[in-house]
């Protein structure tokens, strides 16, 4: 068996472009899914029943169905039946953001309800507005508690971006599989792809470990 690692070196610029797209997708998704998750969490905790129920329906749908199906749905069903045609990138972002927002919402919700009533009372007793109570007293404490869970979601998200390769978004998986198809060097290309994912993912996993250690709830 002979190996041709030159394929990897000559394809490196394309692979790095793909890696860059992977990072970009993950970052943009998380940036949108954090406020998205927070809004969904607040809606679910809202006393207005229809709002709470709508948010619950959204969250439970996106948590309980595969991301790959959600991406297909947005890409094929929306244009065919609802006359909504999104570009591949937009489709990828919409699918990922809906999915991750649903997970973040549950993370935030558990963080918010874990703050005891006394903290709300103490803040209200000072005469704070509900918005100030939430933003200055509850949310910062809740965020500290859920940071480990949020970090774990991030690591999953980073790898799950590979699923959008099915709609030809040129992220690392898609680019790698393209190069494989062009060159037939399956072992070399997939090894390079694994190495790139690992090089990006390992430091993140270590960071998550550190966050778990640093922010574990001590009370």
């Amino acid at each position, binding site marked *: 068996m002979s190996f041709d690692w030159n394929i990897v070196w000559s394809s490196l610029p394309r692979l790095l472009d793909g890696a860059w797209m992977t990072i970009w997708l993950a970052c943009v998704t998380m940036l949108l899914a954090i406020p998205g998750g927070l809004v969904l969490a607040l809606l679910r905790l809202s006393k207005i029943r229809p709002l709470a129920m709508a948010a619950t329906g959204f969250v439970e749908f996106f948590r309980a169905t595969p991301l790959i199906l959600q991406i297909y749905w947005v890409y094929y069903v929306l244009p065919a039946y609802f006359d909504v045609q999104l570009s591949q990138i937009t489709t990828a972002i919409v699918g990922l953001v809906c999915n991750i927002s649903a997970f973040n919402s549950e993370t935030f919700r558990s963080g918010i309800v874990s703050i005891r009533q006394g903290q709300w009372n103490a803040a209200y007793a000072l*005469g704070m507005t509900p918005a100030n109570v939430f933003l*200055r007293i509850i949310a910062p404490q809740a965020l500290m508690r859920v940071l480990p869970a949020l970090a774990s979601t991030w690591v999953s998200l980073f790898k799950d971006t590979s699923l959008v390769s099915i709609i030809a978004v040129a992220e690392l998986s898609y680019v790698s599989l393209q190069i494989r198809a062009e060159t037939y060097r399956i072992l070399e290309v997939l090894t390079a792809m694994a190495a790139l994912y690992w090089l990006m993912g390992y430091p993140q996993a270590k960071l998550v470990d550190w966050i778990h250690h640093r922010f574990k709830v*001590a009370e």
Partner: protein
Amino acid sequence: MTADPILIFENVIKRYGSLTALDGVSLTLGRGEVVCLIGPSGSGKSTLLRCANALEPLDGGRIVFNGNDVKSTESPVRLVRQRMGMVFQNFELFPHLTVLRNVTIGPTTVLKLSSEAAEERSQKLLAKVGLSDKATAHPSALSGGQQQRVAIARALAMEPALMLFDEPTSALDPETIGEVLSVMKTLADEGMTMLVVTHEMDFARRVANRVAVFDKGRVIEEGTPQQIFTAARVTRTREFLSHLGWHGESAGCHQ
């Protein structure tokens, strides 16, 4: 009748499902007065305090603070709360903020004081409760007694017209109870109006102007500490006090 009333409870009723926590409580607090609420656990004392600043909605009756109905629509309940300081059994300091920030957060976010003015005010209050050296610490680094003194400073930073104390020493180690009670005594001596739910009978006897005895959601007896602790008229009051080791006049003398 109390002269110059600041806080009036009129036939206050509060229910939790089938449980009636407050069954028609009427009580008046005069400006500058210290009133202690005593009675068995679960008799409604703490509930009354939480109703006073609308942390709990009422099911009947009304509460008037400074001449305004606490629940009136024209003055938002926030404005009432700003004028009532509250101290909780479990301190409820904000754990993510430093001691100093715990005290300044009310003045800066609610009263819109500049951070310099708020810090100056807060440093004075921390000095008053004997904790100037802890300003940069986080609450978790403090003892229970120290946390409760910070909580008192936090409430005072709003320059309230009235202080509500909800069993402020019940969660404390015996050796730190004294430091909190002495801060409260100082406040009372300075003329602060205080409504105090407490199991510290000695504090009630020495500091209160009046004592109200709760049982099953009602005020069963009200009077001067002298009256309540040495000549209670109601049998239930005498029973409650004797459970705590008070036996009329003699107990008072030995304390």
